[in-house]
């Protein structure tokens, strides 16, 4: 079993970056002209969105890699990326709802951006949940990979929804679209969430690999019976 401390180091680094970026965003960066203090939610919401998209892209890559190589390690990585993606998408929806209430006047709106994120969250959650009902690791890996590829088609729709449709959601936040005073906390928290996400995916991959080993191992009572026979 892998016992490398690397995921823990990456997690701690990510947590420290998040603490520093959040401190800067909450107490040093200026309030935005129209949204006032509420805009500070951006320093946690936008990095979560960026890294959620990265998690979905990584899950898509794992799915393709599994179908081409049939190496079961890619299935463990896929399981990890999907579950961490579910966490990030859930947090993204919560943060978005909290930001929407004081600025839009509602917690939720069936706007194209919000709806497409919710669809991908539900699809990812469904794949993660249904994996527990398939006992054969190979069958589970194959249909998970295919389902992930189909679900990932929604990601470009999420990204471009604010351009394609008359969305209530603002355009993508990039260094070109936000004031330079907001860059530092946004970038620091961007890397913070990235490191936390990588640490989580590495640890979750270990859990998936452990489960796989347990599933494919010969049960001890069978081994004992074999010795007696």
């Amino acid at each position, binding site marked *: 079993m892998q016992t490398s401390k690397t995921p823990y180091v990456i997690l701690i680094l990510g947590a420290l970056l998040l603490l520093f970026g959040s401190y800067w965003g909450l107490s040093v960066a200026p309030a935005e002209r129209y949204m006032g203090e509420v805009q500070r939610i951006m320093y946690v919401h936008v990095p979560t969105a960026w890294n959620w998209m990265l998690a979905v892209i990584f899950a898509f890559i794992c799915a393709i890699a599994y179908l081409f190589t049939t190496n079961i390690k890619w299935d463990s990585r896929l399981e990890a990326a999907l579950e961490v993606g579910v966490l990030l998408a859930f*947090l993204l929806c919560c943060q978005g709802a909290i930001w929407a209430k004081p600025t839009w006047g509602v917690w939720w709106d069936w706007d194209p951006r919000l709806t497409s994120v919710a669809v991908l969250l539900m699809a990812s959650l469904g794949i993660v949940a249904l994996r527990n009902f398939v006992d054969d690791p190979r069958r589970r890996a194959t249909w998970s990979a295919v389902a992930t590829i189909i679900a990932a088609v929604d990601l470009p729709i999420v990204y471009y929804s604010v351009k394609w449709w008359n969305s209530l959601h603002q355009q993508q936040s990039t260094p070109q679209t936000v004031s330079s005073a907001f860059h530092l906390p946004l970038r620091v928290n961007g890397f913070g969430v990235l490191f936390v996400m990588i640490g989580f995916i590495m640890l979750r991959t270990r859990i998936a690999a452990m489960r796989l080993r347990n599933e494919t191992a010969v049960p001890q009572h069978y081994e004992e019976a074999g010795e007696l026979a």
Partner: protein
Amino acid sequence: MSGVVSGVVQGGWEFVIAAYSVTAVGFIVYAVSLFARLKEPKP
């Protein structure tokens, strides 16, 4: 343009605190769940 609401959002710190708290709790609970699953005894 008529129909467009303009103005400045007043206050709002409670929403900021809520967003950061939800995120922190989400990360911490998930990290604890990972550590617990890693320590589970093998069947």
